């Protein structure tokens, strides 16, 4: 073989080796591809996602979430939680507008039961049933008061899982009650007498006897409803005919009016934040109906915290008090980009294991086990009141227009309280507004 032939042979061998090597590589890659896909899936699963949680600001809400988010992120290193908070006085209209408008900004948010029917029937939020195991569902059912948990369900599906619970209850200054020599009133008929006595005692240091969140709209509406329901009233009958313009409605407005001369001046325009400030700063002695909160009984958060006691609101005659049920649950909007990760946060934040951390960070749990946990009672001495009020509480009405009706009710109540209209006129107007809205919504034929 000449040198030339040797070279040609060498080139042939070289190209053949090259060909075989390339063929082998392609064959191996083709064979290995299906084997690699689980690895790819695993890599995707461990890909870091960021979820955005929207909640009201402050104690019980934003602060409580902020307290447990680091624990969640430690347990789920591939999920980061961004939070957006809005002050409670502005949160609900903003949240309803954005979620109702189909926003894709948030992966999960917290909402009160008032919105569940509207959001669920309008397909603005997703059912959470598929994200929860049978065991998790059973555990939630067993540990959250049924009456309360049901407010977050619609047509048999779970649309919100609460890690927070709330109703309205009474806050009072134990020292001022002692000084005035009065007991906590048992029934609404006794309240005026008690605040009269408190006013006399309080006049010395400028403390007002009574305070309430009576701002026009939902606040005045919720206050009215608690007294009204406690006296056995209902917003409408079985056929959706409004039933507020009656003796119970009249009595309710008269009770509210009779307390106005003893109210701190800010009450008529107050949200719950303002009423908490009035009680916490010592401006007022008694808030018979106030949305529950973790601030007022905590001496490190409220100046008079150590002196503030809690109780279920007064009875309506011989009937047990029936305070409005509130509380917040986590929900996932239809437009959420990371629903699975959001659901993981919901499961974590509502689990038994996290409740002590939730309470320590000023959360107000929905689980009965957490409300009874002696460790939690150190932070939340009012939890027994909350547990009792939850049992007696009245769910908010379950139609899509409930927030609209609550707002309209509160507008008329505020008009009566400022004497812009008479009690009779306000009740007539409430009936007329309810009739129009219920007809428009197709409930009242």
């Amino acid at each position: 073989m000449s040198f030339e032939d040797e070279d040609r042979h060498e080139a042939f061998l070289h190209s053949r080796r090259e060909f075989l090597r390339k063929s082998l590589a392609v064959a191996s890659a083709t064979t290995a591809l299906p084997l690699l896909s689980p690895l790819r899936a695993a890599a995707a699963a461990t890909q870091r996602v960021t979820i955005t949680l929207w909640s009201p600001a402050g104690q019980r809400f934003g602060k409580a979430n902020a307290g447990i988010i680091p624990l969640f992120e430690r347990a789920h290193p591939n999920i980061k939680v961004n939070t957006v908070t809005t002050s409670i006085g502005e949160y609900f209209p903003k949240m309803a507008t954005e979620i109702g408008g189909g926003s894709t900004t948030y992966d999960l948010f917290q909402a009160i039961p008032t919105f569940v029917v509207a959001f669920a029937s309008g397909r603005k939020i997703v059912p959470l049933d598929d994200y929860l195991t049978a065991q998790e569902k059973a555990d939630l059912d067993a540990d959250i008061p049924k009456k309360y948990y049901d407010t977050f369900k619609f047509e048999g599906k779970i649309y919100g899982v609460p890690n927070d619970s709330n109703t309205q209850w009474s806050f009072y200054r134990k020292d001022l009650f002692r000084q005035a020599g009065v007991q906590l009133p048992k029934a609404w008929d006794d309240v005026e007498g008690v605040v009269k006595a408190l006013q006399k005692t309080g006049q010395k240091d400028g403390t007002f006897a009574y305070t309430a969140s009576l701002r026009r709209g939902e606040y005045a509406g919720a206050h009215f409803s608690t007294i009204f329901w406690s006296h056995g009233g209902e917003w409408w009958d079985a056929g959706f005919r409004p039933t507020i313009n009656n003796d119970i409605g009249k009595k309710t407005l008269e009770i509210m009016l009779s307390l106005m001369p003893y109210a701190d001046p800010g009450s008529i325009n107050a949200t719950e934040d303002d009423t908490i400030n009035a009680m916490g700063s010592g401006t007022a002695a008694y808030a018979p109906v106030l949305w529950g909160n973790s601030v007022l009984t905590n001496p490190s958060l409220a100046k008079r915290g150590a002196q503030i006691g809690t109780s279920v609101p007064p009875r309506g005659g011989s009937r047990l008090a029936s305070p409005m049920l509130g509380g917040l649950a986590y929900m996932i909007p239809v437009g959420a980009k990371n629903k699975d990760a959001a659901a993981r946060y919901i499961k974590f934040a509502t689990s038994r294991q996290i409740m002590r951390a939730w309470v320590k960070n000023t959360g107000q749990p929905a689980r009965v086990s957490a409300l009874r946990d002696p460790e939690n009672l150190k932070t939340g001495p009012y939890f027994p009141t909350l547990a009792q009020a939850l049992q007696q509480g009245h769910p908010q009405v379950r139609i899509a227009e409930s927030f609209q009706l609550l707002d309209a009710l509160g507008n008329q109540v505020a008009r009566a309280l400022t004497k812009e209209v008479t009690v009779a006129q306000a009740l007539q107007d409430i009936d007329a507004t309810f009739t129009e809205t219920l007809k428009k919504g197709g409930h009242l034929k």
Partner: protein
Amino acid sequence: MARGPGGNWDRFVPFQFLAPGLLVLIAIVVYPTIAIIQNSLYDWNLLVGNRRFVGVQNYASLLADQIFLKSLVRTSIYTAGVVSAELVLGFALALLFNRSFPGLNVLRTLLIAPMLVAPVMVGLTWRFMYEPSIGVLNYLLSVIHLPGLRWISDTATALPSVGLADVWQWTPFVFLILLAGLQSIPESIVEAAVMDGAGARRIIFEMQVPLLSRVILIVVLLRVIDSVKLFDLIYVVTRGGPGNSTYLASFYNYVVGFTQFQMGRASATAFLIMLMISVLTMLLLRVILRGERL
């Protein structure tokens, strides 16, 4: 057929220059207005998302709604009161500053400071000042042995209290424009009047005011438009309360849209308010441009 250098295309040249501006106007004025009119013909609950065509039913129910009609009356009273106060105070300040004295520039700058603050901040500041127990206004009243007022907690004082904050913020704007107007009046005219023996009152009311009439009307026009639309101060200071005492038309619009979520009705309200402002603007413009071609 003879054509110019650009042919018939020359006719379109002005439109090419106008097009960008027109497109922006269509996008930010014409389209939203059409959308508002269209939405106002529907019964639309934002939360549920259902939309049902109801024709002019939203307008009919609005015009029969006593709360809306009263909010319009309240808005008119508020606008008349606030704009009058701003005009009188602004003009008085303009006269005061229409001369030279030491520290003029510093004082003038300080005087326009309220105008530079965001209305929400103004509202929050005044809300704290109005606080019945710890507010500075009641403290000042107590210093001169007067009883404290329930500024924003009393239906009788709430609207004037909001108006006071408004006057505090926007009088400087009126002052600034009127001062510019006063300074544009030739000094020789005033000097001639003085030489003819005219007193200060005659100079102001028979010379400066008539000469400033168009400037005054423009200020009135701008302030009327702003006052009718007022929302931020109400939102921060009173939320329309107590009762309905500060429930102005624009706040009614907000409540219908964003707490009751009735977007059709809210659109109808917005359109009616817009119509009201447009009519007012046209009337004032007619007065301003009287005798001139529009």
